[in-house]
Each structure stands twice: as structure tokens, then as C-alpha cells.
């Protein structure tokens, strides 16, 4: 097992915990197109359907032919760093706290000029670079020039580390370690260098071998947590809420019934109790502490990750009530994101398709293995995204959903997947 990052010195308790400052967050509606792509880990620019021109910054019409027919097109970001400078003074509080800061002017091969932050591994101008869009602490797209060759992590640059939620050196709560997914995530976080991993255990009388195995992981601590019990959630928040840097909600109640396949609402209520009310209980108990510690550098509260389902986008009738509970959780996660964003804490949603576990036993492949899902969690944290659709099924569904949600509803409702 790799060692966690060296633990920073304990903070001086007589000094005030600083509050988070954010980079400027206002964007026009059209500029949010850049953020929408960045939230999925993509760099996209406006391109004109009529004349083909690519443009930046985003505008209402094409700069070349004034056409309204603009689409967002993914870019490879390759270009030339023409010139660079280092900011040494700023009016914005966020930048004042972080000066000096290297920025540069890049000419993309696609034909536009833009100003980007420079990753520490980018050499002096002029040189070839690859521009990425990443989400900054305000949750908005920011452009970052990376070296053209090699793929350094954003977190290797101390200034850009906070564009990520890198689990290395972090203290992380995984809310349910009873599931194979929760266990795989805990193992993956340990491997990624997490400093401490609390793993929730509900109903301790039901022993699960995979959770017992986690007792051997040095960073792992099993803690009592039942998200259906408000008292249990509050008690754990009282004990460790002020220490959690990243909360990963893996609590999931998945039963595989159509709405007429199961009489009554008991099963559906339990799905809601775990998947929706569980998230609400966690949010009420843990979110205030996370917000308060968002600038408690270098081990500050940084992220909240929800394990949702691609069935949150369109109801999968064979798992009808489960889909509905995940749609409710998805909606709540948007409210949580709106609450945490002003503090600089990122809410990341994962929307996996069927998982290779007991409850999706009868689903046809492709199915996501718990280990693959765990790898997607770590990748999402190390990157700079809000919405992750891991695996082939999720990628396919989200593409169909974005293209035509009504068509997806019909296709899925008529027995397809």
C-alpha cells in the first residue's frame, strides 16, 4: 500500500480559520457553455455551423459571419504559448491571497487567442502547450495551459491543486462500506494516498466479508453510520464533521422492482429513505462543517461526491422506484451544490449504469465493475469535474439524453436499455 502524503504540521489553534475567497464567478448565459463542458472534463469552444469559425470568448453570434448558428465543439486545445507574465498585484481578494500567479497568451491551432493560467510544468514562452478547461473554486470554467507532451496532474502545481479534489493527504468519509462499491472506493482512496478514511457501517449485526477486510487498511476506520437514522448521522457529524475534507456518499438502497412488480410502497420508501432522505440528513449534518472549513488550508474541506445512477436521467422501468429515488437525489444534489459552491466546496455527481453486483445480476453486460467505478471516483477527484458518467452504458445514455430526452424515455420505456 503506498504511503499517504506527508501529513502537514498541525495548525496553530490560536489563529482564526480563514474563510474561502472565490475567483470572479459571474458568467453570461452563453459563457456558461464553457462551464458546462468543463463540468464533464471537456474543453469546448463555440464553432459556427455556417462558416466554420471557432471563437473565444463566447458570444451570441459568430464573430466572422454574424450567424446565430453556433454549437459547442470539443477542442484538443493545442497551440502556442506566445507570451507570459506574472501577476503581482490584484484587486480581487481571491488573487490577492494567491499572488504571484503566472498567466500567458496562447494562440490555439484552431485560430483563437486566449489568456490562460500556466501550469508550473509549462516552460518559458514561446513553446507548444495544450489548453484544458478546469473548474475553479467558484465552479466556473477556467483555462489552463499544460505542456503539450506528457500529462501532469493539475495537483502537481500547488496553485492549481485546488482546482482538483485530489484525495492524496485528505481525510475522507465513505458513508457506506457494506456494499462492494463502497469497499472498492475505500481501497482505491487508500491507494490514492488518502490520509484517513472513515467508512460507515450500518446494521453491524450483518457482517460483510469485504468490510471486515478493510479493517486491515492502515488509513481506514470503520464508524457506525446509518443514513436512515438522523441521530446516527448527527452523532458522527459531531465526532468527525470538523475533520472531513471529502464526503463520498455511497449509501444506496437498490431493489429491482417495477412499480407494479412490488405491491405497496414499503420498498420504495426505504429506497427514498436511503437514497434521498439519507443524502438530506448527511447534507444537514455535514455541509455546515464543510463550508466552515473550506479555506482551512492545506487540509481543507474540498468536495462532496454523490453516487447517483444513470437511471436518474430517465426512469428505467424494471427498476422503477429505484430510478425515482435516484432522480430525487439528483435534484437534491443540485440544491446541495448551490449551497456549497459559494464556499468553494465542489459537489461531484457520478451517474453509473448497471453495476456488476448482486442487485444488477439480471442486467445484461456491459456492467461496471465496482473497481472500475472506484477508479472513476478517484479520477473525478483528481480531475476538475462536476458530472461523471462512467462506463459505456452511462456514456450512451447521457448522449441520448442530451440529444433528445423524450426519445430516451420512450426507448427505455419500451424495453430497451
Amino acid at each position, binding site marked *: 500500500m503506498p504511503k499517504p502524503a506527508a501529513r502537514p504540521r498541525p495548525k496553530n489553534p490560536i489563529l482564526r480559520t480563514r474563510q474561502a475567497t472565490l475567483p470572479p464567478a459571474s458568467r453570461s448565459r452563453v459563457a456558461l457553455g464553457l462551464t458546462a463542458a468543463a463540468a464533464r472534463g471537456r474543453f469546448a469552444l463555440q464553432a459556427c455551423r455556417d462558416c466554420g469559425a471557432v471563437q473565444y470568448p463566447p458570444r451570441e453570434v459568430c464573430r466572422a459571419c454574424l450567424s446565430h448558428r453556433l454549437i459547442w465543439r470539443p477542442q484538443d486545445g493545442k497551440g502556442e504559448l506566445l507570451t507570459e507574465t506574472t501577476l503581482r498585484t490584484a484587486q480581487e481578494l481571491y488573487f490577492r491571497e494567491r499572488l504571484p500567479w503566472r498567466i500567458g497568451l496562447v494562440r490555439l491551432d484552431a485560430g483563437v487567442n486566449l489568456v490562460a493560467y500556466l501550469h508550473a510544468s509549462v516552460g518559458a514562452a514561446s513553446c507548444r502547450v495544450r489548453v484544458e478547461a478546469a473548474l475553479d473554486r467558484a465552479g466556473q470554467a477556467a483555462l489552463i495551459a499544460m505542456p503539450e507532451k506528457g500529462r501532469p496532474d493539475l495537483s502537481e502545481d500547488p496553485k492549481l491543486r485546488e482546482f482538483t479534489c485530489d484525495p492524496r493527504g485528505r481525510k475522507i468519509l465513505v458513508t457506506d462500506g457494506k456494499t462492494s462499491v463502497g469497499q472498492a472506493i475505500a481501497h482505491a482512496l487508500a491507494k490514492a494516498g488518502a490520509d484517513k478514511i472513515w467508512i460507515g457501517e450500518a446494521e*453491524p*449485526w450483518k*457482517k460483510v466479508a469485504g468490510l471486515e477486510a478493510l479493517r486491515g487498511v492502515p488509513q481506514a476506520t470503520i464508524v457506525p453510520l446509518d443514513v436512515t*437514522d*438522523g*441521530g446516527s448521522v448527527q452523532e458522527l457529524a459531531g465526532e468527525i464533521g470538523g475533520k472531513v475534507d471529502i464526503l463520498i456518499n455511497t449509501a444506496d438502497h437498490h*431493489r429491482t422492482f417495477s412499480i407494479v412488480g412490488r405491491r405497496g410502497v*414499503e*420498498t420504495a420508501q426505504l429506497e427514498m429513505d436511503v437514497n434521498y432522505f439519507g443524502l438530506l440528513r448527511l447534507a444537514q449534518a455535514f455541509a455546515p462543517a464543510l463550508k466552515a472549513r473550506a479555506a482551512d488550508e492545506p487540509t481543507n474541506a474540498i468536495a462532496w461526491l454523490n453516487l447517483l445512477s444513470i437511471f436518474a436521467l430517465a426512469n428505467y422501468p424494471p427498476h422503477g422506484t429505484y430510478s425515482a429515488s435516484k432522480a430525487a437525489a439528483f435534484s437534491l444534489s443540485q440544491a446541495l451544490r448551490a449551497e456549497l459552491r459559494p464556499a468553494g466546496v465542489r459537489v461531484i455527481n457520478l451517474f453509473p449504469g448497471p453495476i456488476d453486483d448482486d442487485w444488477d445480476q439480471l442486467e445484461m453486460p456491459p456492467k461496471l465493475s465496482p473497481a472500475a467505478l472506484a477508479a472513476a471516483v478517484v479520477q473525478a477527484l483528481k480531475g476538475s469535474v462536476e458530472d461523471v458518467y462512467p462506463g459505456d452504458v452511462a456514456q450512451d445514455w447521457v448522449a441520448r439524453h442530451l440529444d433528445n430526452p423524450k426519445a430516451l424515455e420512450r426507448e427505455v420505456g419500451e424495453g430497451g436499455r
Partner: protein
Amino acid sequence: MKATKKPVPGKKAPSKNGVKTSAAMSRSDALGALLHAVATSGGVHIVDLTQTLSPDFPPIVLPPEMGQSRPFRMEEISRYDDRGLGWYWNNVSFGEHTGTHFDAPIHWISGRDLPNNATDTLPVEHFIAPACVIDCSGEAAADADFLLTVAHLKAWEKRHGCIPPHSWVLMRTDWSKRSDPVAYQNLDETGQHTPGPDPDCVRFLVNERDVLGFGTETIGTDAGQAAHFSPPYPCHYYMHGAGKYGLQCLCNLDRLPTTGALIVAAPLKIRQGSGSPLRVFAIAPRR
């Protein structure tokens, strides 16, 4: 109301041969003795036989694809705050068979067609009844799967008299002293391991002794492995099939006299309820 007579396999006419009948008391005997105790020497004391209802108290475990009994949960309505400045109260939710609870005959398929078989129609005169306490604490400590047999009951009767009709038979195992829910559930890969009665024992109590019901300190009136008995869950099957009751998750049975205590067990008056959590207590002469 007399518990309805549904034919039960192996039923014979009650026979009390070879058993002394003087010590164990019927309800009127027990009431008389208690009144005497109040009037004379030490008086009586009340023994609470109820576990505290809390989210930590474990519910019955069933395979996860089955319908699940909800554990006890409590959500605050207000606590002298903006939701209600001057008062504190909660909404609670739970399955009918949560914590210390009562099983009515309608709970089991064998008792579904009996008259007065639900919590709202039970005869109120059954809410107070004498108890015979069978001490199995030594056996249960030695063997979690201990089964109470007819031989045990007959040996008990030799010492304490015949179990009177319409009395509770309470199986004391001291299982309630297992405060760790994991030890209390005692589950492994082969299911639950908790003591209970064997099928013959239940048939004997129903057919030969016409008891009011059977009470335990564990999560069911049946043994943990009773799903594999013939019939499965014999205590539920025979007791409820004959209009008898169940009490489970009891505690403090070690503080009861072997005979002579009166049990007060009145479930909530839930329309067509199959059971309910309840406060169970005993009125017992001071020893």
C-alpha cells in the same frame, strides 16, 4: 373469550398425571395472592419487562429481497425552537414487530381466520395473566441454539406444579443482557443462533396446557434456526393457529418469581394490527 380450537396435530385430552397441581397459579389465584401480599407482608413490586425503543435496537433480519420490518426511527418535530417554540416532540416510525412487542394470532397464516385475532379485537381480559418462568439461562449460555423440550417442561412442572391454563410461559435465557446488538442478533453465514422452543414443546404447551402465549428474550418466539424446523417457525405456527400470543424481546425475566407474577401486556389498539410494541410489566409479590 376462549382461544379458538383449531385442530392441531398431535392433540390429546389434557392429562396432568404425575404432576402436582398446587403451586402454579391461575389468574384468579395469582390476583388473590397478590392482594394478600399487598395487605400483609412485603407487598408487591412492579418489574418492567420492556426494552427501550431506540434506533439502535436491532430489528428482525430477513433476506433483503423480502419485505422488511422497519426499525424504530424518530424524527424531531420541534424542540423549543423555531419549529415550535414552547414544546418538544417527535414523529416515530417502526414496524409492528419492533422492540419488545406482542404477536397477535393474525400475524401468522395459521391464525388468519380466527375470530378476534388482531390487536384491536383481542379480548381485553387477556391483557393480564399469570406467568410461569422457565429458567433456561444456563442452557442458553452454554448453547446459543438451545431448544426447550417437553422433558424440560415436565421437569419444571415436577418442581413448580402444572402450568395453569391461560398463563404466559416465559422462556428466561438472559439473552436480553446481551447489550451489544451484534451479540444479541448472533448471526453468522448460517443465519441466526438464538434459543427457542422445539416443535413438540410448542404442541405440548398448546394442546396439553392451553397456555395464553409464549414469551422470549430474543427477537422471535421461535429459535434462530426455526426456519429449518418442521413445521418452520413452530411457535408462530402452532401458537397463533390456536389463538395464542407471543411476546418477544422481553427483559428482566431474571427478576420474576418462577410463578406468582401477573403479566400486564396490552398491545396498541391498531385496527387489524398483527402486533405492536408495548410496555410489558409484571406485578410480583416481593420475595
